[in-house]
């Protein structure tokens, strides 16, 4: 009989090993799933994990990693702060949408004015938009004790309706021949979140993602706020004893993750996507939850996890077109990754023991 036994100290080795093993077991589990779907498992795994990086078209896919990875990392860094403290913002997708609407709105409201100040203002509005949207669950939680998981999640659907209304009404392109969607910001130089160096796909959002990783690392390791966040997650009573104000922490964590999600939305709408449209959001806000846990809520871990998750997105798209894999299978693969990670994570704090058969008298 197998038995789990709690380790006196968390195992560091397993902390690093668990994510790697999770990727490997996901490949095996995914391979089995693809085989059941009637595809060659080895080819499918290779297409998803290997081709985007090393095939003959890799020159096209590699920059895509940054484009997909940056918003995931930016959002996940924000979420990880709250997750560490046991504050569950599940509505990053909504904050991402509102950030995009506010950022794009700031630019469209002054169109076609040409100024170097427009893009910084858009960044500010994007962050404020996401922050404000996250304040709704935060204030409801601190004032009335509502559950932030439900409120933030439901606000995603409100944000989606708002997005649709914007693309069909207020923000609709007057020169767009009646099609839904705003003006394309890629064609509005002052507002375009363009590549900083041609061919690298590094836009301002990538830079912000990197800054957020470093910021979060310093915060958690060296600053009082980060210590209080970790303490609250470990033991809320001890945190209260240490003098942490739980309400302030809720405001801070939800506000920070909302602002970063808003930023991610703003960089997306001003850059790779270009316009506010009904199907602007593609689930980064939800995938970022997986990224945050896959990265073990550690800033540098999240950076790697964000790139890995971007890889499955890109590899998944290739597999869909070249092998005809259904998109649901790719989502299942991403879910498997989280599942295996959480399962293997147990081994950081527990060890598996063979239970000895007890000797009878």
């Amino acid at each position, binding site marked *: 009989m197998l038995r789990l*036994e709690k380790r*006196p*100290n*968390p195992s560091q080795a397993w902390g690093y090993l668990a994510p790697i093993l999770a990727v490997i077991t996901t490949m095996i589990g995914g391979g089995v799933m693809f085989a059941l779907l009637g595809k060659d498992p080895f080819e499918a795994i290779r297409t998803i994990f290997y081709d985007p990086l090393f095939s003959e078209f890799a020159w096209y896919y590699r920059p895509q990693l940054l484009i997909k990875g940056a918003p995931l990392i930016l959002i996940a860094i924000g979420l990880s702060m709250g997750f560490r403290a046991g504050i569950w913002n599940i509505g990053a997708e909504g904050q991402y949408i509102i950030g995009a609407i506010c950022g794009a709105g700031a630019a469209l409201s002054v169109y076609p004015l040409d100024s170097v100040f427009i893009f910084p203002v858009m960044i500010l509005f994007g962050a404020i938009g996401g922050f404000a949207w996250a304040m709704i669950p935060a204030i409801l939680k601190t004032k009335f004790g509502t559950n932030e998981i439900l409120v933030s999640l439901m606000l995603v659907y409100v944000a989606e309706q708002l997005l649709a209304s914007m693309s069909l009404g207020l923000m609709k392109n007057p020169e767009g021949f009646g099609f839904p969607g705003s003006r394309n910001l890629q064609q509005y130089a002052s507002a375009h979140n363009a590549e900083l160096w041609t061919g690298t796909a590094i836009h301002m959002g990538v830079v912000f993602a990197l800054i957020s990783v470093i910021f979060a690392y310093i915060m958690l390791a*060296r*600053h*009082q*706020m980060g*210590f209080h966040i*970790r*303490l609250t997650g*470990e*033991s809320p*009573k*001890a*945190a*209260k*004893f*240490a*003098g942490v*104000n739980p309400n302030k922490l809720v405001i801070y964590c939800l506000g920070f993750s909302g602002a970063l999600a808003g930023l991610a939305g703003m960089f997306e709408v001003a850059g790779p996507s270009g316009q506010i449209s009904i199907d602007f959001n593609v689930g980064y806000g939800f995938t970022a939850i997986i990224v945050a846990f896959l990265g073990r809520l550690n800033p540098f871990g999240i950076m790697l996890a964000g790139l890995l998750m971007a890889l499955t997105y890109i590899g998944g798209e290739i597999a869909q077109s070249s092998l005809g894999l259904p998109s649901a299978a790719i989502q299942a693969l991403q879910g498997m990754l989280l599942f295996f990670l959480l399962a293997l994570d147990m081994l950081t*704090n527990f060890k598996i*023991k063979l239970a000895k058969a*007890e*000797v*009878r*008298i």
Partner: protein
Amino acid sequence: MSKTLLHLSGLTKAYPGVIANDDVSFDIGAGEIHALLGENGAGKSTLVKMIYGLVRPDHGTMLLAGDNFTPAEPRAARAAGVAMVFQHFSLFEALSVAENIALGMENPPKANALSTGITDVSQAYGLPLDPERLVGDLSAGERQRVEIIRCLLQKPKLLIMDEPTSVLTPQEVTTLFTTLRKLKADGTSILYISHKLEEIRTLCETATILRGGKKVATCDPREKSARELAEMMVGGTLNSAKLQKTTLGEVVLKVSDLSLPPQTAFGTSLKSISFQLHKGEVLGIGGVAGNGQDELLACLSGEVRTAADAIQLNGVSLGHMPPNTRRALGVLAAPEERLGHAAAPDMTLTENAMLTAMTRKNLSHSGFLDWPRAEAYAKLVIDQFDVRTPGPHSAARSLSGGNLQKFVIGREVLQDPEVLIVNQPTWGVDAAAAADIRQALLDLASRGAAVIVISQDLDELMEISTNFAALNAGRLSDARPMAELSLDEIGLLLGGADAAA
């Protein structure tokens, strides 16, 4: 001596990394009150669990009244005539006494017969109890009676009692002892687990002492002094804490009319608590847990805010201040729950040092944390308080209860507080560590600090307090000099006599 009821021979039980019981053999005679003594971790509970069928021994044999005794589960043990009263009661507050007793029986008789049975037993053994009352309305002593009667209805040959007096007032203890002596006279054997040596010396005729899983001795406790017994338990000489005679200084902390509504559905409210604390004073606050101890500590530590004027330190009102502002002023606290309140279980000792010492030990500079300094402070606490651990990088949960408690107390004491409030400082701590902790508190007071010790352990309070007050149902009695109080008076205070007057 009478004939043997339970014969234990070579009982051994190993858990991963520790041998809980190593070749333990002794006999319990029929109609004997047999004490089982030992520090925490000495293997008392494992041994009792084997007798009660909760744990199976790796080796060894048990004979009950001459027959092979291998209970596979508690039900088998009960059927064979072994009953047990646990330290923590398992009663439903919303049900009546009779209903609770019926729930614990294999074949409960009809309600009427049961009520008669309860009344008969309670009268026969001097345990007054009305079968129709709700358990929620009973005191701790009365609840214990419910557990005892539940056992007695099964007419056991051996009754095991685990720390039965830890929640009782002195008067209730006397009643319990009368009952136990009656049981003994009727031929029932009792295995009595306790760490209160004086009690054992008055009650028991045989004592078996365990240390580190091994039997040290079986002796007659009436022929030994409490100190000799304690030293057998610890395996060395024991220093008892000594209060240096100091004259009390001026008033440091003044609490006046401190009231608090209940914080949770089952919380206790504090009712107009007032007292004054002097420099060099150790104020012992006695009372059974659940009478407002946690709430009082939370009000003093700053986890719960009250009216500003209710708490004053040297004339400064601080009832409205958060914990760290109070720490800066010199009011420190150590809550009862070590893991999860005083310390975060999965964090290292360095991080746990940061938890309360951030302000006074200057471990943070404009929000940025000075980890090397925190680690140095954790090391200092570990050294000065003899905390047994590989080092400051160990997680708090990896420490034993006594060692973690020494760390928690040391962390506060070394911050040089003006006022230190501790709740149950030696609860579940082995005798040697408890003595160290008491001495540290007394040393702190002799250096001029004021100390409040909230404790259920009367022996402890009598040993270290200058003044004594009792907390009962959220009311605090007037503080009186410990030396002037008799045991009877203390018992009356604990029962709320002062508050009623």
